Every structure is written in C-alpha cells, then in structure tokens.
C-alpha cells in the first residue's frame, strides 16, 4: 500500500504501466503477415517496432540460381499490386546491360500497363484505407472499379495480378485487339467514378478529423528514411522516378508530379487520389498513339549479361523500386538486390506514430500502403 502511495505522491497522479501489444502477424489491419510490437500507455502509442520476415521467401537467393527471363516471374510475387512495374524494372535492367533498344511500341505499352497497374493499386489502397478507418463501404466501390483493370490485364496478359508481361527484350505477347478500346472505355468510365471517391470519403468530416495533422513525416525525415512514392511526395520530397530518371515512354508524356507539403495522413491520402487523375492523363496521351511495330526484339536463347553491375530504378505504386544486378558473365546473376519501397517506408512508421493513438497507428500504416511480401521479399 505504502509503495503505491509513494508512486502516487511522486508522479502526482495515478501510476499507469506501459504495456506491449503484438499487432500481427495475424491482425486485420496489417494486411498480411507483418508483426508490430507496439508499446502503449493506455491508448497512446509510445513505440512501434516492426518485426518482418514472416513471409520472407528468399527471392534474392533464388534469383542467383535462375536465368534472367525467369527472374521476371519472381518479381511478380514481391509487390503483387505493382507486378508490372517490377517486371519492367528487371526487363529494363537486362536490356540496359545488353544495350538492347526496344521498339517504341513496347515502351508505350509498358507505360500504359504501368499506369493501369498504378491505378489498380491506388484503387485497392483507397478501399483498404476506408476499411482501416471503419468505413467499410469504400471497399466495394474501389474493388468495383479495379475489376475493370484486372479484366483488361486478363485479356492481354492472361493473368489478373501476377502478369509477368514485360520480359527482357519486349513483351510476352502483343496486346489483345480489344485492348485500346477497353482501356478507352475504362478511362471514360473511371473519370465518372473517381469523383465518387471524393464524395464518399474525401469530404467526410470524420475522415478529415481523423487524418489532418496526424502522422507528421517531415521533409527531412522523408529523405532520411528514404520514404518514397506518394508517401514521400506528401512530405514534399520530390522523388518521382518517372520525372527524374524517366524510362520507357515517360519522356514522351506530359504529367505533373503531385507534391504536397502538409506531411500528414490527409496529404498522403490526397496525393494518391490526385495521382489517379494523373495516371488517367498519362494513359490518355498514349493510348491512341501506340506505334505499329514488333512487340519484342529477338533476343538470344540464353541471356548472358556482361560482367559488371547494373542498376535500374522504376516508380511503382508505392515508391521507388530498384533492381541491382551484379553479373559475372554467366547466364544467371551473381547477386540480385531488390530495393523495395515498402522496406524503407515501413521503418519510418515508428517516427510517425509516436504520441498518437492506436487508431492513428492504423490510419498511418494504411497511408504508407505497405505490401508485406514487398518488404520481406
């Protein structure tokens, strides 16, 4: 008794203990098998320790045993929502190493596919963000529109998510004859549906209250932690690889890099919404101008990269994705490293959540748009 009294006298209030909660590996809001060791005081988050590796599949090790065209299929499995961008990164890296120039047709189709994948990914992010905040209806609105994109993918690539469409030297197949018409139909359709997203969620008072000023990630921190993609751009960090190191058909199109300097959850939300409009713009500029030509250049049966180190950066839906290949001249790489955006983004979480509530932790994590296989690889 006297001990308790002492504590009360010392702190001038009722003593409360810190406690730790394991969020994950099975938890509805970690969207996969991420484990967060959260230290709490009441509802207040004091510390967040991410523990990853529950879905580590050793993709980098596997790559050392297989040939370059085969690596493509593994990259689908990392960030499954940006599967096409990941494919493209490897394809571009190998093409650069071999100094192969792909036809313009390939570049255009790759860029259109990139943007479609980005749209699909942002749509899914939007659904899940609503769900994490407790607005379950958004989930079905987002999925409704995403189906259209996946159908287009299915028709052209034969797969809905793990597309494996870009290969070194070009594309797996030519586009489906319906492709252009369907993409144009989709753009027309989605231009009417995108304002619905704003109506349903963006203008909501509760959403504004829940996100404004929450999860501040300063400009400096964004660079220090290497937070890229929409999350980084919402902190004013101009990190769009499409702008700074353009690849494929990005040099040919006009688009804006969406930057926001408010640094909070709402900014990250709005950057993604605006990026969807930009993606639509990019596709619109390209879809009617796909040049005629081959969909792939003839490559050797066995690809052997020259000795050396090759790096390729692309912009996926959640940030900068990099492929680093160390080659010793054989048909399989000596070392492959994937720089995944989720990995760097995840570790900024602790910095952003300190002092906020549990509910904010969920919202902040959701705006970082983490894909766990992307982190664990």
């Amino acid at each position, binding site marked *: 008794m006297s001990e308790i009294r002492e504590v009360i006298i010392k702190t001038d209030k009722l003593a409360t203990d810190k406690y730790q909660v394991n969020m994950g590996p099975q938890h509805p809001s970690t969207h996969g098998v991420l484990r967060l060791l959260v230290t709490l005081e009441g509802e207040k988050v004091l510390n967040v320790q991410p523990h990853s590796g529950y879905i580590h599949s050793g993709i980098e090790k596997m790559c050392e045993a297989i040939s370059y065209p085969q690596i493509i299929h593994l990259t689908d499995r990392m960030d499954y929502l940006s599967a096409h961008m990941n494919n493209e990164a490897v394809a571009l890296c190998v093409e650069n190493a071999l100094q192969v120039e792909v036809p313009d047709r390939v570049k255009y189709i790759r860029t259109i596919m990139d943007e479609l994948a980005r749209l699909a990914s942002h749509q899914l992010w939007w659904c899940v963000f609503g769900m994490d905040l*407790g607005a379950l209806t958004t989930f*079905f609105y987002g999925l409704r529109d995403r189906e259209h994109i996946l159908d287009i993918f299915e028709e052209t690539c034969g797969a809905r998510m793990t597309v494996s469409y870009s290969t070194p030297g070009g594309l797996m197949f030519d586009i489906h004859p319906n492709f252009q018409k369907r993409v144009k139909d989709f753009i027309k359709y989605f231009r009417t549906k995108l304002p619905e997203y704003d109506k349903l969620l963006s203008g909501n008072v509760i959403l504004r*209250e829940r996100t404004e000023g929450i999860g501040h990630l300063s400009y400096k921190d964004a660079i220090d932690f290497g937070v890229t993609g929409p999350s980084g751009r919402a902190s004013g960090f101009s990190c769009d690889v499409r702008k700074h190191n353009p690849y494929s058909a990005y040099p040919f199109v006009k688009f804006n890099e969406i930057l926001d300097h408010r640094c909070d959850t709402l900014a990250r939300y709005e950057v993604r919404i605006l990026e969807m409009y930009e993606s639509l713009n990019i596709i619109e500029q390209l879809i009617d101008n796909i040049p005629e030509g081959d969909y792939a250049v003839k490559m050797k049966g066995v690809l052997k990269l020259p000795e050396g180190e090759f790096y390729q950066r692309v912009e996926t839906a959640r940030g900068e994705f990099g492929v680093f290949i160390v080659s010793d001249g054989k048909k399989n790489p000596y070392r492959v490293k994937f720089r995944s955006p989720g990995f760097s983004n995840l570790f900024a979480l602790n910095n952003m959540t300190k002092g906020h509530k549990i509910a904010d932790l969920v919202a902040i994590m959701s705006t970082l748009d983490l894909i766990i296989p992307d982190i664990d690889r």
Partner: protein
Amino acid sequence: MDIYNFTTLTHNIHTGLAQSFAPWLATTIEWVIVGVAYLLFVALFGLFLVYAERKVCAAFQQRLGPMRVGKWGLLQTIADFIKLLMKELIMPRKADWFLYNLAPFIVIIASFLAIAALPFAPGLQSMDFDIGVFYLTAVSSVGVIGILLAGWSSNNKYSLIGAMRSGAQILSYELSVSLSLLTMVVFAGTMQFSAIVEGQRDAWFIFSGHIPAIIAFVVFLIAGTAETNRGPFDLAEAESELVAGFHTEYSGIKFAMFFLAEYINLFIISAVAATVFLGGWMPLHFGNLESFNHVMDFIPPVIWFFGKVLFVIFVIMWFKWTFPRLRVDQILTLEWKYLLPINLVNILLMALVVLTKFHF
C-alpha cells in the same frame, strides 16, 4: 382504433387463467407466457435485424447480400445461428472462468430488461411503470458491466482496450441519452411510456415540440448509436484496430449472445426514439384533416410502431455503412464538448417552450 386494442385479449387471457387455476399458478403461467413471448420475439427479431443489416449494407455497397439460403437468402441468418450454436466454445486458458461465462448473460439480460418496458401497441406492454423512462435509462446501462467484464476476464489486451473504450464511451453517452429523453419528459410531463404515447394522439412530439424536440431527437440518435456500440462509434469492437474488441475471445453461442444483444440494443434505441419522438404506435395525425386521420387509423398500431422502429433502424444502419470510425478522444470530445452543452441548453429551451406554451 379499438379493434386493434390488445387490452381485451390480454384481459381475457388473464381472467380465463384466473378462473381455471389457483392465483399463484395463474400468475406463474402468465410469467412463463410473457417470458416465452419475449424470448421468441427477441430471437426472431434479432435474426431478422441481422438479415436486414446484411441486405441494407449490401445495398449501400452495390452488392446483393445473402442470396443462397432460402428465397433471397431469407434463411441465411437462421443457418448462421445454427452454425454458431454448434460451434465449440473456446476459452483462453488464463481467463477468469466465472466472469468470462457471466459476461454474455449480463449483456443480454440488460437488453431483455430494457425491452420489457416498451409499449408495442395499445395493451401490448408487459410493465407499464410510471417511471418508465427512468427505468429504461437505468437498466440500459447495466449492459456495460457485461462488456467490461468480458474485456477484463478474457485475458487479452485487445479485449481489455475494447472494454475500456466501451466503458468510457457508454458512460459518457448515457448522459446525452438521458438528457435528451429528459427534454421530452419535460415536454410530455410524464415518465410513463403509455402516457407519453397517449400524449401524442394529436401530433407526434417531434412535430409538436418543434425545434427543441428535433434537436433532442438528433442528439438522441447520435448518442443512441454510440450507446449501442455501432459504427461510426464502434470503437469497442473496432475491427481494424482491436480485431474484435471485447468479444475477441468469445466463440459459439456466447459470441452469439453478444451479437444478439447488439441488435436488441439497436432495436431498443430505435423503439425508444420511435416511442418518445415519433409517437410510438400512434398513427400519423394532422390537426384538422379528419378524413386523412381516419384513413391512418385503419393501419394497425403494431404496424405503425414497427414501421417507425424500422425507419430509425435504417437511419442508424445508414450511419454505420457510410461514415468512418471516430477516434477515442474525438468520441469523448463530441460528447463532453458538443452534445452535453447542446443538451443542457436544449432542456432550458424546452422548459421555456413548455412554460410559454409555444408549441402545437
């Protein structure tokens, strides 16, 4: 009106029983009949509400909802309920056995206690207290004890956080519920539910009490939604944060009890809103429109009552499927900084309205 009055029916049953049996036996039989009737009603209406929620939510989300079991999926909730009945009851090893098992019963008993005071139709009310409103606000807050016990005894931190949130939330919003009801008590001049309904024969309170009544109604809807732990105030079981909140560790029929209690509470809040603000089982009457009023009288009071209840339930479901969830500090801010002061001012306003007789 009288053809729909249940008083004669209940009276006949009573006299019939009293003639055939000893007085104590007759009373016991009456108790059993009333108990069974309430149990049946609650079970069936609870199942119906679950079905309705799924269909309403499906409509908001551009889907069809349950369609496979029975016509339009009508039997889906029954199938679900049977599944829940047959599920294994799992208890965490270090849970407090007694409190863990007691909690669902407290929650559901509190709901049953509250439902007893509601008038469904003329004569169809089991207890007509003269302090009905007071009794209802008293028993409806018993349920929070069950929720706190469930969270505490489950030996799970998520449950505990959920229970604590629920405790803070329900205790705060109890104030607003009571005060907004009190506003209407000031207007009605009575706490007896049957008298409140009777007072709305000419015009429902939400019309006759005009501005303060409408304010009280809105406040009551918000606070009532918070009391039932439903979205956007479903912090106690916030899925994306606390897995399932206070009932994370419950399975099978014990989970079903929490689930059912949530829907009964939804019904109670809607029924109280319908009774106090929308005239209960009273038909819609407009001052001097004799023929219109007469037509309205032909619709049975039970239908009026359930129509209004279902309307309020629909509005509450509408909230849930549209809004994101609030944060715990925002939910308390909303109550203590906005709803409570509004309510207190509103009571004064209502008192002024009553004193100056500035009402219809």
